[in-house]
């Protein structure tokens, strides 16, 4: 086994370890920097949270609209809301399509409250 190979191996080892360290040092530095910025942001956040606690909506707008519309239809049709279905986690994720699913799903529940065939 000749020396060139080994020296090449040495060279690539040095480069390799060098790049690994440089790369992870950059990550370390970036994290440290981000933490600094984050401290400030968090201050702002804490105040925001205080406000949020009073203001923040607990369900997304679509659902809200739907429940409202459901309620409205109820009233229009003089019916009571039998139940409001909780979202399953799977569905709960803000998937455009699952929202559809939910939208129309809930809609149809609303509808199905009305006496059949009228």
């Amino acid at each position: 086994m000749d020396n060139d190979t080994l020296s090449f191996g040495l060279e690539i080892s040095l480069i390799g370890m060098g790049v690994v360290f440089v790369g992870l040092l950059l990550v370390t530095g970036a994290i440290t920097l981000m933490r600094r910025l984050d401290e400030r942001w968090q201050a702002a956040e804490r105040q925001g949270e205080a406000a949020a606690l009073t203001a923040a909506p607990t369900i997304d707008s679509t659902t809200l609209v739907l429940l409202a519309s459901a309620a409205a239809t109820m009233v229009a049709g003089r019916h009571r809301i039998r139940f409001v279905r909780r979202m399953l986690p799977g569905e709960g994720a803000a998937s455009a399509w699952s929202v559809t699913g939910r939208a129309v799903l809930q809609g149809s529940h609303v509808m199905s409250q009305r006496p059949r065939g009228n």
Partner: protein
Amino acid sequence: METLKDFLAAGALGNLSWGNLGMIVAGLLFLYLAIRKDYEPLLLVPIGFGILIGNIPYAAGMGIGIYEPGSVLGFLYQGVTLGWYPPLIFLGIGAMTDFSCMLSNPRLILLGAAAQIGIFGALWGALWLGFDTPHAAAIGIIGGADGPTAIFLASKLAPEYLGAIAIAAYSYMALVPVIQPPIIRLLTTRAERRIRMKPNRPVSKRMRILFPVVAFLLTAFIAPGAITLLGMLFFGNLLKESGVTERLAQTARNAFLDSITILLGLTVGASTQASRFLTPTSIKIFVLGAASFAVATAGGVLFAKLMNVFSSDKINPIIGCAGVSAVPDSARVAQLVAAEEDPTNFVIMHAMAPNVAGVIGSAIAAGVLLAALR
């Protein structure tokens, strides 16, 4: 030292270009819109991160890039280039969609047909800008506001523009809340926007089971070119409604749909390498795409007004905007615009009808274009 030089030459710094930097900024913007503004996050997060992956500069020949033979990204990208991700996504969408809004108010389906004018408007514009016909058709389909349909048709008629077409389609789908309201207000009177519609009628389980079968046979007979997309959409819906295949529908709309969505979004994003993506053609495609969304919205709204001329049971023309699909965002836009005028007027359930009808309409249009130009 040679090795070190080679390594640096193979590295990012050795291959950096302004284009890549620009695209990376664009990718970060997508992520910002998705995560902070909640614009279609399930699409924009994968696409945005894919843009980052696709624009890290490197020396060719390592088998890394999505366009390099034998690369993993290239392998996963085949689902896009061979066009089999979109039908599989439609399978999951079908297993997720409830068509009873359409079934309870069938005439609203026509709004979903009218909005397809956006496709052909953009097609014509593209011809006028000098694209040849198949490319023009692939660009026009952006107006269908359906990512999967756009990717499917583009992969067959204009593979070289696939990236630009897909990104344009998904971007504008995410931007419907910005694009549509002004157009709606421009084309409708305050009185029209305050129209209240009768609540939907109930829909029996039997209707829901029969619908996907009947609708598939009718539409596929009319436009066989749409068999793949419509077949998967209605098959998925039958799995959902049949009542005896719930476990298949569950998988189709969850693990199955999510997996394909991840891979499609990521690879479409990664296909936007600056060197191929940042071209004058892409700019033309984005302009035409924006126009097609505008035309489609106008088409839906105006057709609703036209129907009101002939029918006593008035339609609130706002919901015409939902005909472009971009499910369910455009239906939500309709609701929001309606609520501005009258907070107690709930049109979203009615808007869902043209919304899902628009998906079928775009697929039919894609079928026609495929049949005529392939």
